[in-house]
């Protein structure tokens, strides 16, 4: 599992070389603090349910909806247009789940997410489909992801489903670049 996440991060750095070159320190300095704002999620997994925070990053994204004069590869800082006009991305995330009993669990996940534009080239509405692996309490679980995004690719409502035991995670995510 560690190798998997390490390879994801490595893929991000490698793709950075092929991605856009506009990234600057100033750009990073503005972008990074916003990534620290967690997404909110609710989960239900018999016999537990609770509330969670999630921090997401995109090591690499390939867009197929943008003009051909720019590279389709992005790393970490992703213009919303590149994502919502149609894309496939690797998403790595850290989660903090809390239960009603007051216990907290840390989890890590990696997702392969596809974004399909539906309205106004995706700026108003997209369909999101994906699959991912969660590492929680020394177990690795596979989740299927489906959802929609709206408001210029900034607000995402995703439903994640895993088996053994059946687990549902409803997440309201805010991605700002």
């Amino acid at each position, binding site marked *: 599992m560690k190798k998997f996440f390490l390879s994801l991060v490595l893929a991000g750095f490698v793709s950075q070389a092929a991605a*856009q070159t*506009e990234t*600057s320190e*100033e*750009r990073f300095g*503005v*972008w990074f603090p*916003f990534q620290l704002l967690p997404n909110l999620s609710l989960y239900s997994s018999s016999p537990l349910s609770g509330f969670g925070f999630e921090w997401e990053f995109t090591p690499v994204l390939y867009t197929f*909806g*943008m*003009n*051909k*004069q*720019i590279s389709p590869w992005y790393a970490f800082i992703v*213009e*919303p*247009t*590149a994502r919502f*006009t149609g894309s496939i991305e690797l998403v790595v995330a850290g989660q903090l789940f809390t239960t009603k009993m007051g216990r907290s669990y840390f989890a890590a996940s990696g997702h392969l997410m596809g974004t399909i534009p539906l309205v*106004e*080239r995706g*700026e*108003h509405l997209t369909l999101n489909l994906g699959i991912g692996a969660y590492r929680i309490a020394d177990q690795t679980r596979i989740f299927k992801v489906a959802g929609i995004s*709206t*408001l*210029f*690719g*900034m607000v995402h409502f995703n439903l994640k489903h895993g088996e053994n035991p059946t687990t549902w995670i409803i997440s309201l995510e805010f991605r*700002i*670049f």
Partner: protein
Amino acid sequence: MNRLASTRWHVVSLLRCFVVTFNSSASSGESVCFDCLSSEDRFPQRQSRNDTSFFLFRWLVVSLLLLNGCGGYIQRMVTRSLERIGEPVESAPMMISTPVLDNPPLAISWVGHATVLVQIRDKVFITDPLFTDYIGMVVKRYVGPGLDPSLLPRIDFTLISHIHMDHFSFGSLDMLPKNGTLVIPQGLLRYTPDFGFRGLKELKPWESIEEDGVRVTAVPVQHFSGRYGIDNAWLGQKGYTGYVFEYAGTTVFVGGDTGYHPELFKEIGRRFPIDVALLPIAPGSLTNLGGRVHVGPLGALTIMQDLGAAYMVPMHHRTMFYGSDSNPTQAIESLRSLAAQMGLSDRIIDLDIGEQRVLRLNSEGLPAGLP
């Protein structure tokens, strides 16, 4: 009122705002669910939408807009639009039936907002095409476009002045014919989907392209950047521009969206002999030159004089709520009054939405006056 009822009213109002705002197909303006809950018996304290009911949603929108680096005028545009949800968009007073004419010397049609169709001989230009009812999902236009884009057989140059959603509308660009070149300001390539235009060119300030006898030059104006919030912080002066396009001896300036600058427009006027300037006249002060990023009527007239333009076409008014206007026609009425006081009335091509005007030429082939 008791606290519980008040809380319920705010919650339901917020839900109603979300439901009707994000359901653009709602024609009645009242969602069924909300109607179930909104009887006067349940909510006797209900007053106008202006006061209580939109408070929470306004707070959310303002927070987003502050994050987006936008001023209060956009907030007012949004809240004014929310009040008009469910109301139909007013039809344009006129409709352009033949957008592309047979080789006119110079034809100018105002489609609404900053969308102007210009034809010089056999070349057709359109600026900042906007044909959708909603801009940025929540700002609603008052008056519909004065042109059905499906009537356009071709567009040689589509000029995008800047990154904001009322000037760079994805849905509207999808409605245009793709047999021409899409011209965008520096910084917009990373925001431009693959629309399928025959050509796509990003221009830096003072950079030109020449195609088939047409020269299009990006010229600096004074506005602000950013489309999705924090990008305003790093785009800086990228993402907005004006244009000058020249063909067959005729030169047209496109202001896009701009504030007044005491040197900028004089410099453009020194470099180009401007025949016609397409200039925004709102939102901006009715009594002075306007703010840093927008001009009002006086600012626009001053820009016309600084450019040395023979004529001016006022645009960027009436189509939606512009924040500083107490009524949609205030800006153009103010422009007419000021132009009369300054002796400039005969240099204003005062088009209504959907109106097309053909200018005749003098002996040197230059625009010689209004028909």
